[in-house]
């Protein structure tokens, strides 16, 4: 029994450390006797129990014991403690975790005073491998009471949340990017809004630059920044694509995949550090294109988190997603802009047509007004003639009024076409209208369609009026059987118009002794107005008047 007890006693110190994998072995092999805890044989039962639980656990755990908080940890904790192992074993926790000590000191003190804590996904920048790393842990500090009621140490269970936290914020950033760029109206908006969105994740990207490739293909301009001022030595606003830029933008634009640029601090002085204590050491340049085949619209430069886990490819993958997202937004806005340009030009066309219609309406109003005044003036002149010549020389009055009406009628004709001229036939018919009423069968009008400018139309109209009234007084219309044949042709050689007014069946015609106003108007006035020749041939069987005019 005693022997047995003794045997147990001798085995006991090592027995509680039995198993426990690598760390069990390490603790067994450790020379505790020279440290503050002394040899394991003398360790309190609570510590032994804690270590047994810790070593058996698959969860990363540590135990800090005694006033010095001597450090124990298990196999599962090895990846967390990283390069600090194996030196961290048996060391006071304050020395092991000097870089985060300030952050956790109060909670440690609280735990040693008997107060348990639970911290969820807390960021800890650990220097476990000789450089700072951004990590996230959920951990609980549980005080371990001794038999006397005092706290002998702390046991802590850890969960590594680093991947979960970083993954979640990257996803959030991609969502932010999508929702921000959704508001973009123009491609420039996409750049600016993307830069704003990138500001939501400064830990992954302490600063970012977005360059747009200009249409000339020779330069790129800075369209968005986050975490760095445009114009900073690392953020030139204009980059010539001749390889002179400190960033290999031209390489990326020329179809290269992403490029990593290291040793940033050597290239650029005074780089912003973002949320970190140190400036970024490297950056990624990514083409803004929706696929490997698509032409890049620009280049995204993402400064990388200086505290990111080395060798972790997840940042590169994430950066590629960011670039792809921005590129998609650009491409879809390009399509939208193109659509809008098309719509706009259609709008402009509509506006132009509306404008033209308005001008036409205005012109019509002016012409109406002008015509109104002309007609009112003619009406006034007519009224004056009627009044003045009431009792004298009735034929003279009627001849005058007839001319006035001929003039007025030609005005009407031109008004119908907004003073753009009138057809030759229209002019003829309008001029002959007072006589046609009663002599429809005695008129023969035939000729090709010809358009006359207003000046010629008025002159020709008045000339026809004079010819017809002459015919009524002396010619084919002065009896009941005469006819008038009006025909015109266009010469195919010189394009001149030749017109023949031929009277048949009237009384015998004599050469007039004197040329009255009407004939003179035809012979001289018309010739001048139409820049042509007018010939009057008073043949006994009827007058033949021929015109030769330039159109």
């Amino acid at each position, binding site marked *: 029994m005693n022997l047995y007890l003794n045997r147990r006693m001798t085995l006991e110190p090592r027995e509680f450390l039995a198993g426990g994998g690598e760390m069990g072995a390490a603790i067994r092999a450790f020379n505790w006797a020279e440290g503050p805890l002394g040899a394991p044989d003398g360790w309190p039962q609570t510590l032994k129990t804690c270590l047994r639980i810790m070593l058996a656990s698959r969860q990363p755990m540590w135990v800090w014991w005694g006033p010095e908080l001597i450090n124990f940890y298990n196999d599962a904790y090895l990846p967390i403690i990283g390069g600090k192992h194996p030196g961290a074993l048996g060391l006071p926790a304050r020395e092991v975790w000097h870089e985060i000590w300030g952050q956790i000191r109060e909670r440690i003190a609280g735990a040693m005073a008997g107060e348990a804590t639970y911290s969820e996904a807390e960021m800890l920048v650990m220097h476990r491998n000789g450089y700072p790393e951004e990590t996230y842990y959920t951990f609980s500090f549980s005080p371990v009471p001794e038999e006397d009621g005092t706290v002998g140490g702390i046991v802590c269970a850890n969960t590594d949340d680093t991947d979960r936290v970083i993954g979640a914020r990257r996803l959030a950033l991609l969502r932010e990017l999508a929702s921000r760029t959704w508001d973009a109206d123009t491609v420039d908006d996409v750049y600016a809004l993307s830069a704003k969105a990138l500001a939501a994740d400064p830990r992954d990207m302490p600063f970012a630059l977005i360059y747009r490739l200009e249409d000339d293909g020779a330069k790129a301009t800075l369209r968005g920044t986050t975490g760095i001022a445009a114009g900073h030595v690392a953020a030139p606003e204009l980059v010539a694509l001749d390889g002179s830029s400190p960033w290999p933008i031209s390489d990326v634009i020329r179809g290269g995949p992403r490029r990593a640029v290291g040793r940033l601090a050597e290239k650029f002085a005074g780089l912003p550090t973002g949320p970190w204590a140190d400036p970024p050491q490297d950056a990624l340049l990514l083409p803004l294109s929706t696929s490997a085949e698509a032409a890049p619209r620009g280049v995204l430069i993402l400064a990388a988190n200086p505290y990111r886990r080395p060798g972790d490819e997840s940042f590169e993958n994430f950066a590629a997603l960011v670039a792809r997202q921005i590129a998609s937004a650009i491409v879809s806005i390009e399509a939208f802009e193109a659509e809008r340009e098309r719509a706009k030009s259609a709008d402009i066309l509509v506006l132009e047509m509306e404008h033209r219609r308005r001008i036409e309406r205005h012109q019509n109003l002016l012409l*109406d007004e002008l*015509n*109104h*005044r*002309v*007609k*009112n003036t*003619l*009406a*006034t*002149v*007519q*009224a*004056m003639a*009627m*009044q003045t010549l009431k009792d004298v020389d009735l034929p003279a009055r009627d001849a005058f*009024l007839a001319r*006035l*009406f001929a003039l*007025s009628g030609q005005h*009407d004709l031109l*008004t*119908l076409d907004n003073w753009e001229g009138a057809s030759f036939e229209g002019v003829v018919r309008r001029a002959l209208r007072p006589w046609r009423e009663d002599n429809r069968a005695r008129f023969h009008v035939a000729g090709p369609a010809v358009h006359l400018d207003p000046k010629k139309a008025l002159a020709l109209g008045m000339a026809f009026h004079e010819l017809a009234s002459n015919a009524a007084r002396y010619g084919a219309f002065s009896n009941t059987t005469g006819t008038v044949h009006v025909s015109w042709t266009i010469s195919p050689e010189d394009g001149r118009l030749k017109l023949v007014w031929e009277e048949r069946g009237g009384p015998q015609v004599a050469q007039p002794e004197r040329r009255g106003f009407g004939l003179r108007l035809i012979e001289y006035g018309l010739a001048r107005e139409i820049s042509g020749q007018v010939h009057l041939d008073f043949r006994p069987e009827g007058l033949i008047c021929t015109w030769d005019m330039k159109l």
Partner: protein
Amino acid sequence: MGTKPRVLIVEDEIIVALFMEDVLAEFGYEVAGVVGHLDEAAAREPDYDMAVLDVHLNGRSVFDFADALTVRGIPFAFATGYGERGIPDRHRARPVLQKPFQPEDLRRVLEQIRPAQAA
């Protein structure tokens, strides 16, 4: 003769109005009056059986007054230098006298609109 139809002349060209007065008298109408302003025309007691309306009087169009005549059932014709294009649809059916017009034209139009009971 009390049976002569009374015609109101709405015309701002005084010479034209005088001419119309003469022509109307010649054709057996009585001129109820000549007005050159729309306000004057609108304010006037309807002491006439029919009217000839110049379309534009001193820059204003006569159509409001034409509406008033339509409501009162007083027949009228337009006199205009514009042609029918200047006449709104609601008055398109009214006879239009193209200025300048012959006395004959005026007589024809007046006969068109002359109320039967005044004939």
